[in-house]
C-alpha cells in the first residue's frame, strides 16, 4: 500500500481510540472523582492508545489511512508517535496514582484538585493524539494550542507562587509562539490555495496529502515566509532556543508525572509537526532552506542546554534542561534528513520518552520525600533508598545514551546520518556540546545518588509506586536490545520523511 486510502472499520477504530479513550477516562474522573479505580481507568485508556498505535504501525505500511470523513490520517510517523504517546502516558498515569495518593495523604493537595488533575491529564493525552493523527495542519494547530490549555493548570497544580509564575510564563510564551505558527499556517494555506487553483478543491488546502502534492508548485517567496513562522512557532512549543525560557520553569513546577509527559512526549509532538512542514518545505524550496534554520536553532538549543546544565543545582530543572539538550539533538538530526537520521530520530524520541518518564517519576518521589527539588537537600539517595536510587540510576544510564539502552543506537544513527548528509562540522559541534551535557548530568547525578547522606529521610518505595518505574526501565532495556518489528516501522517512517 503506497497511497492514501480510507481505513477499514477496525483500523478507523484504532485511529479513534487514542482520542476517545482518554476523553472517556476524563469523563469518568469528572463523574467519580480521582480515586484508585478511575486512576486505573486512565492507565487503561493510555494502554489502549499504545495498542492502537501498535496496530496502526503494523497495518499502515508506507501508505496512509484516513478516517472520520478525512479528519484523521495515519501514516508510519503518526503510528510511531501514537506509540510514544501511549507508552509514556501508560507510565505517567500509572505513576500518577501513587503520586496523587501521597500528595493527598500529606495534605499537599485536595480531592477537588486531584479530580481536576485527572480530568486535565486525560484531556492533555487526547489533544496530543489529535495533534499527531489530524489530517489538516490547521487542526494540528488547534490541537497543539489545546495542549497548552490542558496543561496550564497542571503546571499550576501546586498553586504556589513559583507554580503560578511558571504557569503564566508558559501560557503566554507558548500561546504567542503558537500564534506565530498559526500565522505561518495561514500563509502556507494562501500559497497552497494559489498553487492548487484549478487542480483540486481548495477546501482541503491544508491537508497533508494536498500540501505534499502541491509543494513543488508553491510560490517560493511566500512559502519561505510561512516556513520561518512555522519553525519559530512550533520551535517555541518544542523548546528550541531562543524561545525556550518557559521550559525549565514549567517542567520543574509541574507535578512529576505531568513533567514526564511534557518532557517526554509533548516536546516531541510539537517537533513532529515541524517534520511534516519539512517534507513540504524540502519539496518547495529544496532541502537547504529549512536545514539551515534547524541547524541554527538546534545548535543554539544545545549550547543553552549544555551551559545551563553545568551550573544546575535543582534536579528537576536538570532533567528539564536535559530535555532541551535532546530537542537540540533532534533538530540536528532533522537537519541531516537522511532516511537513517530520521529513523534514528524517531527511535530517539521513543527512548528519550521512556527514560525521561522513569527519571521524572523517580524525581517526583524524591520531591515528595524531601519537600524540595534542590540537589543539596537530597544527597545520598542510593544509601537511603537503594531501590529508588537504583531506578533513578538506571534511567540516567538510559538517558546518557550508554549501551545497552536504545539512546546509544539512536545517537549513533543520528551521527552517521549527519555525516552522510555532509554536516560534519555541525556534527562535531553537536557532539562536543552533548559531551559537556553528559559530563554535567553525570556529575550532578553522582552528587545526588552517592553524595553524603546526612540525616535525610529513608526512601522506601511502595510496590505499587515502584511498579511503573520498573516497567519503564524494563521497556527501555528491551527497546535497546531488541527493536523487532518496530525497527521496520521506524525505517518506513524515516523513508517518508527523508
Amino acid at each position, binding site marked *: 500500500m503506497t497511497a492514501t486510502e480510507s481505513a477499514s472499520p477496525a483500523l478507523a477504530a484504532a485511529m479513534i481510540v487514542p482520542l476517545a479513550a482518554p476523553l472517556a477516562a476524563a469523563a469518568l474522573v469528572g463523574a467519580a472523582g480521582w480515586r484508585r479505580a478511575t486512576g486505573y481507568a486512565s492507565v487503561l485508556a493510555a494502554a489502549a492508545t499504545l495498542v492502537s498505535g501498535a496496530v496502526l504501525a503494523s497495518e499502515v505500511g508506507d501508505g496512509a489511512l484516513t478516517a472520520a470523513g478525512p*479528519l484523521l490520517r495515519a501514516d508510519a510517523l503518526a503510528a510511531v508517535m501514537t506509540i510514544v504517546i501511549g507508552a509514556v502516558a501508560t507510565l505517567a498515569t500509572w505513576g500518577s496514582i501513587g503520586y496523587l495518593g501521597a500528595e493527598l495523604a500529606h495534605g499537599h493537595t485536595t480531592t477537588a484538585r486531584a479530580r481536576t488533575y485527572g480530568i486535565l491529564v486525560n484531556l492533555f493525552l487526547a489533544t496530543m493524539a489529535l495533534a499527531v493523527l489530524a489530517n*489538516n495542519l*490547521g*487542526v494540528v*494547530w*488547534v490541537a497543539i*494550542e*489545546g495542549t*497548552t*490549555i490542558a496543561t*496550564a*493548570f497542571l503546571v*499550576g497544580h501546586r*498553586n*504556589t*507562587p*513559583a507554580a*503560578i*509564575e*511558571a*504557569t*503564566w*510564563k508558559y*501560557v*503566554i510564551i507558548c*500561546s*504567542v509562539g503558537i*500564534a506565530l505558527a*498559526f*500565522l505561518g*499556517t*495561514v*500563509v502556507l*494555506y*494562501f*500559497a497552497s*490555495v*494559489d498553487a492548487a487553483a484549478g487542480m483540486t478543491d481548495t*477546501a*482541503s*488546502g*491544508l491537508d497533508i496529502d494536498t500540501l505534499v502534492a502541491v509543494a513543488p508548485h508553491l*510560490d517560493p*517567496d*511566500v512559502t519561505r*515566509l510561512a516556513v520561518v513562522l512555522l519553525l519559530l512557532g512550533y520551535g517555541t512549543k518544542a523548546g528550541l532556543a531562543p524561545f525556550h525560557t518557559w521550559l*525549565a*520553569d514549567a517542567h*520543574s*513546577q509541574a507535578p512529576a508525572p505531568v513533567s514526564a509527559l511534557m518532557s517526554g512526549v509533548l516536546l516531541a509532538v510539537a517537533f513532529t509537526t515541524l517534520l511534516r512542514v519539512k517534507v513540504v518545505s524540502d519539496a518547495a524550496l529544496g532541502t537547504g532552506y529549512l536545514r539551515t534554520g534547524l541547524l541554527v536553532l538546534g545548535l543554539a538549543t544545545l549550547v543553552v542546554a549544555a551551559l*545551563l546544565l553545568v*551550573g544546575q543545582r535543582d534536579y528537576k530543572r536538570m532533567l528539564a534542561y536535559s530535555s532541551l539538550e535532546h530537542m537540540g539533538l533532534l533538530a540536528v538530526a532533522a537537519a541531516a534528513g537522511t532516511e537513517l537520521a530520521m529513523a534514528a530520530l524517531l527511535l530517539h524520541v521513543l527512548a528519550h520518552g521512556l527514560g525521561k518518564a522513569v527519571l521524572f517519576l523517580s524525581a517526583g518521589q524524591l520531591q515528595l520525600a524531601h519537600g524540595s527539588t534542590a540537589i543539596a537537600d537530597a544527597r545520598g539517595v542510593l544509601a537511603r533508598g537503594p531501590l529508588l536510587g537504583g531506578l533513578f540510576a538506571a534511567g540516567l544510564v538510559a538517558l546518557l545514551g550508554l549501551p545497552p539502552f536504545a539512546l546509544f543506537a539512536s545517537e549513533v544513527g543520528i551521527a552517521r546520518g549527519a555525516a552522510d548528509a555532509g554536516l560534519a562540522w555541525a556534527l562535531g559541534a553537536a557532539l562536543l556540546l552533548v559531551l559537556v551535557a553528559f559530563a554535567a548530568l553525570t556529575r550532578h547525578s553522582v552528587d545526588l545518588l552517592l553524595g553524603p547522606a546526612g540525616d535525610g529521610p529513608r526512601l522506601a518505595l511502595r510496590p505499587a509506586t515502584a511498579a511503573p518505574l520498573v516497567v519503564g526501565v524494563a521497556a527501555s532495556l528491551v527497546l535497546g536490545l531488541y527493536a523487532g518489528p518496530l525497527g521496520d516501522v521506524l525505517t518506513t517512517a524515516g523513508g517518508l520523511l527523508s
Partner: protein
Amino acid sequence: MTSETYANLLHFAGGLLLLCTVGVVWRHQLGASVRLLAVQGAALAAIPLISGIYHEKAHLLAIAPVVLVLRAAVLPYLISRMVPPTARPPGGWTASAAPATPAAQADAGAPDGPTATRPGPAADVLAGSREPVPLISTSVTLLLSAALTVLAYALCRPIIALDPTADTRTAPAALAVIFIGLLALTTRRQAVSQVVGFLTLDNGIVALAFLLTSGVPLVVELGASLDLLLVVLVVAALTNRMRAAFGGTDIGELQELKE
C-alpha cells in the same frame, strides 16, 4: 457592490483595525484599551462580512457574527472582569479615560496619589487597571509602531505580487497589527495589558487569514476561536491566583524562577 466600493470598505476596515491598535499602545488606562479592543474586534468582523457579500461566500457570512460576538463583546468583557470590582471607577470606565499625560505618568509612581472621589493612578497600578511607568515611553512606542507599519508594507510585497487584489493590498495593515501587538506584549508589565497585546496579535492574524485566503477552513476557524476563548479564561483565572499570591498583577514581580 462595485469593486471600487468593495476596495474602499475593505481598506476602511483595515485602517480602523490599525488605528485601534495604535490606540491600544498609546493609552495606558485599561478601560480605554478594552474599549479600543472591542472596536478593533468589530472592525475585524467587518472584513468577512464585506468580503462575504462581495464574493457571495456563505461561510464568510456565517463566520462574521461569530467573530463579532467573540472579539467585540465576549473577550473584551472577560478582560474587563480581570480587574477586581473595587478597582473599577464609579460610573464605568468612561470616567477614568483621561489621556496618559506626562503628569499622570509621573503620578503613577507616587504612593500618595489617590484623590477623595476615586482611587488615583497609583492605586490603579496596584489593582492592575493601569500600566506602571512603561519600559519605553509612549512617544517611542508610537514611533516604533510607525516603523513596524512600514516594515509590514515591505514584507507584504511578495504576497501582493503573487495575487494583486483589494484583499491582499489590505494585508499589510493586518501584518502591522500583528507586529504592534507583539510590541505591546513585550513592553507591557501589567498582566492584563499583556493579554490585551496578545489579543491584538491574534486579531491581526485572523484579519490576515480573512484577507489572504477568505479565512481558514471552517473547522479550523471554529477550533481556533474555541482555543482563544479557553486561553483567555485560563489567563483570567490565573490572574486571580496571581493577585492572591503576589498581591498584584505586575509581571515584573515574577522573578522567583531564574537561573
